[in-house]
């Protein structure tokens, strides 16, 4: 577990605390919690609940990025899987719906992995194909309209609660533990990092880099599928035009805020999820603040810049030099 939360998590935890404090300032009732119809209710729960899709995406994305790859298609995969789940929800049982949606995510991941690992395409180009085509596929499934459903089972996935905790939060936590157990409980995480650090050397040392790359894209697809199902369940409908739109960028941002380098070779699952929570804490804070919506993106950009500056090795080096200079002066 020590590998899950290394010392470098300090900057992220600090950033989260500062943003939470800022939220408390703009909205005095931010930390209030109560039970509403057997479900916890409050802004903190909103942060966790609304942060779920990006947190799930970042779980897959961080592994892809650790192999020095990137997956731009996760938003489109969300739309495809949400559309599949919504179209089947009222006529099939929940296990069938879930199997179909997650299966579609797996196939999407396999496609991306095939292009990158077997055909040797650049990840950014390979996944761009599905990013563009995927939304079209989702629109074909929904015929361009919002497909709604009433199946209580699927709705429960988006809006139900287990012991007061909304189901999406439980699912995201479960996925974090599962992913962590698989990649850190075995040598898998190390092999993924080796693939990203130096694919050629790893290959020569006997690491099955192709299999590693294929596996991370498949996992990324499955995580995106789950996020898509939750997003559809939340609004009781699949909106192919808007579901997951631009969320691939938020997922990459979450991973980067979590301190994982885009050059691969090192990753932290917990910090990637923390990155997703930082983004959502900020989003919810902006909504609560009552500022005109024209400021939303600007505020977000400034905060992200601040968090990234906090982690910049050059900048901390710069601060160190300044401190030394000051000390050198009489």
């Amino acid at each position, binding site marked *: 577990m020590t590998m899950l939360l290394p010392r470098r998590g300090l900057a992220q935890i600090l950033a989260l605390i500062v943003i939470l404090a800022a939220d408390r300032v703009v*909205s005095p009732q931010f930390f209030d919690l109560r039970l509403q119809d057997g479900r916890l209710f409050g*802004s903190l729960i909103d942060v966790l609940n609304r942060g779920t899709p990006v947190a799930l995406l970042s779980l897959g994305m961080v592994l892809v990025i650790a192999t020095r790859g990137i997956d731009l298609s996760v938003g489109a995969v969300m739309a495809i899987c949400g559309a599949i789940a919504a179209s089947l929800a009222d006529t099939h049982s929940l296990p069938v719906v879930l199997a179909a949606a997650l299966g579609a995510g797996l196939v999407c991941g396999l496609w991306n992995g095939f292009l990158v690992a077997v055909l040797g395409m650049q990840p950014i180009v390979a996944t761009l194909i599905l990013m563009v085509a995927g939304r079209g596929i989702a629109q074909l499934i929904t015929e361009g*309209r*919002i497909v709604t459903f009433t199946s209580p089972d699927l709705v429960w996935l988006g809006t139900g609660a287990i012991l007061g905790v909304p189901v999406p939060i439980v699912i995201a936590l479960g996925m974090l533990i599962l992913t962590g157990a698989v990649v850190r409980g075995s040598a898998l995480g190390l092999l993924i990092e080796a693939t990203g650090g130096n694919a050629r050397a790893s290959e020569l040392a006997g690491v099955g880099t192709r299999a590693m790359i294929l596996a991370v894209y498949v996992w990324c697809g499955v995580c995106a599928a789950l996020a898509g199902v939750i*997003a559809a369940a939340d609004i009781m*409908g699949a909106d192919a*035009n808007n*579901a997951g739109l631009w969320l691939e960028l938020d997922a990459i941002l979450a991973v980067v805020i979590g301190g994982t380098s885009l050059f691969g070779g090192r990753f932290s699952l917990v910090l990637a999820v923390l990155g997703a929570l930082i983004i959502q804490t900020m989003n919810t804070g902006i909504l609560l603040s009552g500022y005109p919506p024209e400021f939303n993106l600007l505020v977000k950009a400034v905060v992200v810049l601040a968090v990234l500056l906090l982690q910049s090795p050059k900048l901390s080096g710069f601060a160190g030099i300044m401190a030394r200079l000051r000390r050198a002066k009489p």
Partner: protein
Amino acid sequence: MTFKALFAASATAALLLALPANAAELTVGFSQIGSESGWRAAETSVSKQEATKRKVNLKIADAQQKQENQIKAIRSFIAQNVDAIFLAPVVSTGWDAVLKEAKEAKIPVVLLDRDIDPSGKDLYLTAVTSDSVHEGEVAGDWLAKTVGEKACNIVELQGTVGASVAANRKKGFDTAIAKHANLKIVRSQTGDFTRAKGKEVMESFIKAEGGGKNICAVYAHNDDMMVGAIQAMKEAGLKPGKDILTVSIDAVPDIFKAMVAGEANATVELTPNMAGPAFDAVAAFKEKGTVPPKWIQTESRLLTATDNPQNEYDSKKGLGY
């Protein structure tokens, strides 16, 4: 949608071959934007219905959101020597050259749903559009009338920042409620015209306004955001339509479903029937030479729970929304 359009086109072509050439009175080419929203799909279906009603032979070209496809379609309509061209322009500029070609071929062009750059005013016969400022006013007037003299805190779900429809619907609503000192917008945030964002933003409004107790009404720039907001209110233990009044714009089928359930109060219709008035204008122009006004404004109907929402739902659900 593309498949549908293709199918429709080939079906029309087959019909043309089967029928004697003089059976259809008018042939109209319609360059449609593409499948950008449910409303757009409904507009296409209603255009077909209106054409059938008037025995007009309508050829629809799906531009897949690209201006160059629309220009190609218009050129092909000119080559086929159609009687009139309908254009739902994807952007407002860059139409001068192709519209001049249509003018030289003496084919009248009618703009549907959106206007184009003012420099081209003499290049088209008329524009059939709704007035989105007026839509906002109708929504505001309904709320003012319903609330009466009592103080009312309104929260607003805006459309996408920078979209002209959002700015206009805001402006119209603001003008309407400015006359009533008891109506006040306390919070306004963008929900990007989507259900998911509408729900998320409403959740934050409820928390920021004392669990929703300080909110008397929600105004959403479109019905989809309102559908999301209604879910947020229900999950917060509030009764939308009773504790909190709702008024939104567009009149998509799902808002009528909410109205039947007593969870939505009013919507202002953005009619998908832009082609009907356009056909009439073209027919009058062709037969009697009547030149229509440059702008034909469609009606912005107010629909509430007393207007038989079940009936509205049934008539709209098959249109492709």
